[in-house]
């Protein structure tokens, strides 16, 4: 099931003295199975765009199609769209409210009007997906958990809706390196084993380079760049002119190439960089 964003524009507070255009003429198709990294500096429109994908915001112009449903004609009842497109906000643990973990994760399925048996199945599955032990955790209060556990419960709350597309806005915000790696590994696993389409909004270029298979760069309410991670991250100058960081290994390759050497410009990880540099050094020695 794909998402099609068609000629979408969005203006905050249209008609008032405070009006501000947050999105301009966005055209975008997200295919099933993609792992999209959505990057851009603060204020580029990433959050605004992402809130259009599940109808939390309705476009001022244009429309968004989620499979066969579109947000404009369904604006009275967006529940089905919100079941298909799961959205995890930044610091999702701030939405926890129930007395037990089970009840909080069940909130989404309950709102979908599912049978208790089905609800229980989904809660179990969702908690397993975030690597929490169902039996130990289901009756505990969400507020008695550690920060990392609370975040997982919150994410499970969205996974329990069994969306086909999962959007995560900075899921690693505030976590230390270990916490970050764990969450991203879990998301990558969901993507590869369950085929969930993922949209990852992030400021961390290294994470995006590592996990995404498509990178979309936003700038001032428009899509500035769209392509594979190798295509995008090799354009170091353009990314820097957009005020974005590039993984250090990318900067290194670009610098070496600017000095006249001949290395691959589309390196994404430290491992790839070490391989490439090793080959280059040995090539140099043999020459």
């Amino acid at each position, binding site marked *: 099931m794909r998402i099609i964003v068609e000629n979408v524009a969005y203006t905050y507070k249209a008609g008032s003295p405070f009006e501000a255009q947050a999105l301009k003429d966005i055209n975008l198709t997200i295919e099933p199975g993609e792992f999209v990294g959505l990057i851009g500096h603060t204020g580029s429109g990433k959050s605004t765009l992402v809130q259009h994908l599940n109808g939390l915001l309705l476009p001022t112009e244009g429309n968004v199609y989620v499979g066969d449903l579109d947000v404009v004609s369904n604006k009275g009842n967006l529940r089905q769209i919100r079941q298909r497109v799961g959205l995890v906000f930044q610091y999702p643990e*701030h*939405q926890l409210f129930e007395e037990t973990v089970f009840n909080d994760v069940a909130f989404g399925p309950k709102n979908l009007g599912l049978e208790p048996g089905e609800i229980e199945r989904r809660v179990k599955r969702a908690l397993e997906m975030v690597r929490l032990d169902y039996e130990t955790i289901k009756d505990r209060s969400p507020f008695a958990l550690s920060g990392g556990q609370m975040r997982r419960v919150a994410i499970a709350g969205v996974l329990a809706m069994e969306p086909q597309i999962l959007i995560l806005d900075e899921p690693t915000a505030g976590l230390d390196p270990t916490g970050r790696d764990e969450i991203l590994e879990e998301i990558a696993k969901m993507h590869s084993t369950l085929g969930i389409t993922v949209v990852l909004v992030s400021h961390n270029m290294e994470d995006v380079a590592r996990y995404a298979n498509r990178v979309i760069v936003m700038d001032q309410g428009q899509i500035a760049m769209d392509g594979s991670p190798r295509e995008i991250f090799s354009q170091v100058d353009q990314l820097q002119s957009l005020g974005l960081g590039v993984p250090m290994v990318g900067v290194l390759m670009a610098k070496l190439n600017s000095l006249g050497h001949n290395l691959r410009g589309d390196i994404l990880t430290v491992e790839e960089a070490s391989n490439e540099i090793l080959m280059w050094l040995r090539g140099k020695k043999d020459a």
Partner: protein
Amino acid sequence: MLKDITIGQYIPGNSIVHRLDPRTKITVAMIFMIALFTVNNAVGYISMGVFTALAIFLSQIPFHYLLRGLRPILIIIIFTVTLHLFLTPGTEIWRWGVLKITWEGVIQGFFMGMRLVFLIFITSLLTLTTSPISLTDGMEYMLAPGKRIGIPAHELAMMMSIALRFIPTLLEETEKIMKAQMARGADFESGNLLRRAKNMIPLLVPLFVSAFRRADDLAMAMEARCYRGGTGRTRMKELHLYTRDYLAMSFLILFAIYAIFTRML
């Protein structure tokens, strides 16, 4: 977005009313209200009207803002006027069955209505020309003598100013929580009153939890900056009374005496 609401209804400006000390304005408003409730004849009410018009003129606040302030209590005004119209004994001028309107009723209704209108105008002027934080400062100074009888003036003022500071932040957070719950299928709009109240739980609980966390963090940050209550604290912006303040208050006192005097006419 909700956070763009400015605190209170304060409209910044440089009129003489704006520049009066908040204590002056609070005192003037209180004295005016007393005077307003002592007048009981045409001369009295007209004087009140003239004073109100003068205050509005000096404040340079556009009239439509003040009219907007009447909207919430329009019902009360109409209700009061109607009560007086129909229930004041005297010379009948209109009748329909049991209901009758008297000439005295018309006059009383009109006067009572005007009383409410002037009351609203003057209190609106107070909040329109004085920033919430100035009002809080003014009240802290005025309540300070009460410390001797146990009124925690500083603490009350600190609570008010922290509340004012966090209103936009909490509104912003409310919006975020609402969206997060809506993304999970929550519905905050449909249903009867009871249903809607129940649906607020996923909004209120996180908000409360976060408010307590904020309070904890803020208390720690305040203590780290050597806060220990009001004793020994000074203020960067101290309130000073100037000539215009003394003049305003003197004028009001004289006006109040005059108002009482009009009763004898």
